[in-house]
């Protein structure tokens, strides 16, 4: 089957007013000792510095992941499921091509087998968009656009792209952003008790989705995903130059100048400069 679901290309908006949303936002923005700000998150520079401090401290006390995010798997999935809905809505639905979806899941699950986190079920979907981008949601869902799927022709190139997104989840990049906010209590309460006030959850999902879809991760997280993703692809037996080849093809296509591909990622040239100059993977056999 090869169909494209029809959805309005927009972020999800509440059907009804959320009664306590204003109160939750006021709570989030007006904690003692903090100046009012336009976002629940600190600036990227400060965020990066703070995350390094948290990570360093956590390593010292032996609580690397849990200590850095403070979220249980159940909470991560509750967040990731809603973020997945937002991502699919933003890109006009999924490209429901069974063969292509099977292929990305086979390659992706092979990579996931050797990822650090084995507590997740990895799932891979293709967004019905001809733009070039990829996203990951906490909890194990990875999305690439149809435009990127078609650009990355070989299994090696697809593996390079998928491994990059897997690393974002594997290293809890999104959850570490949440860890810097003040909304964790609301999520915990909601996951434990479905009757709990959901306003804080709504605010958190909105902020996190905005971060993932519009701002993107900080450059250090992106370069880490490139670096560790390359290593994961190589460990799994794919050519280590898959991601590099995809980025080079994108640059050569001229789309980089006109269509803002990977616009939530650092500039192509900066990523290529940091990646080792691996040889291009073999071309896929002509079908």
């Amino acid at each position: 089957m090869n169909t494209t679901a029809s959805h309005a290309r927009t972020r999800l908006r509440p059907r009804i007013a959320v009664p306590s949303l204003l109160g939750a936002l006021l709570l989030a923005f007006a904690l003692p000792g903090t100046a009012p700000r336009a976002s629940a998150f600190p600036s990227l520079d400060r965020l990066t510095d703070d995350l390094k401090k948290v990570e360093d401290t956590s390593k010292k006390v032996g609580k690397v992941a849990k200590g850095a995010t403070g979220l249980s798997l159940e909470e991560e999935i509750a967040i990731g499921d809603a973020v997945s809905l937002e991502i699919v809505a933003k890109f006009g639905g999924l490209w429901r091509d069974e063969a292509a979806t099977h292929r990305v899941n086979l390659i992706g699950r092979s990579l996931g087998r050797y990822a650090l986190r084995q507590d997740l079920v990895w799932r891979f979907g293709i967004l019905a968009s001809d733009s070039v981008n990829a996203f990951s949601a906490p909890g194990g869902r990875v999305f690439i656009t149809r435009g990127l799927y078609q650009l990355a022709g070989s299994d090696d190139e697809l593996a390079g792209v998928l491994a990059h997104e897997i690393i974002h989840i594997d290293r809890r990049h999104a959850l570490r952003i949440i860890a810097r906010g003040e909304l964790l209590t609301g999520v915990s309460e909601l996951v434990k008790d479905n009757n709990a006030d959901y306003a804080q959850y709504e605010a958190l999902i909105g902020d996190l989705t905005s971060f993932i879809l519009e701002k993107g991760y900080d450059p250090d997280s992106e370069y880490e995903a490139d670096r560790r993703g390359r290593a994961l692809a190589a460990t799994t037996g794919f050519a280590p130059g898959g991601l590099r080849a995809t980025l080079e093809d994108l640059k050569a296509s001229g789309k980089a100048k006109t269509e803002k591909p990977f616009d939530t990622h650092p500039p192509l040239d900066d990523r290529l400069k940091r990646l080792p100059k691996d040889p291009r993977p073999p071309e896929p056999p002509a079908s």
Partner: protein
Amino acid sequence: MNTRRLPRPTAAAIVAALALVAGVAAIEKGGTVFSKRNETSLRAEPSALAAASGKTGFAEPLKVEEVRGSWLRVKAAKAAGWVFTGNIAEEKPTLPPPAGLTTVSASETDTVAAARPLAPAAEGFAGRHDAGKVKEDVEWLDAESAKVKGEAVEAYLRDNKKGEYRP
């Protein structure tokens, strides 16, 4: 300029640290790595097809005694043998996999890989946002993903000589 050569252990430590920063496995003889699944088989030889020599549990420290390509000869508390580098972690993992997720039987992973409903909180989120069609898409994705069974992943790796089946 200070041209004094660093003593060997210090130089080795720097190389290991640089390798870590570069995202390359800093795995060497004498180091410690960790198992990351509830159960990981150790092999009598550095091959996925070799006989099992023992098992390790989740987050168990493994002392590296020899490195041969992508395989490590390790010693655990109650077992010893060879393990593929993809099956271990350089840092101690924190959250154990759901019960039944092991390297011993790929089919066991299907227990946890089966399509699960969206989390109740996300179900409520979809309802409040009138996101019925989007929810159907995500559920379709989960169902399609669940069709890729553990055996299929295992066969893909084996047939294409990938992962621990690399020669």
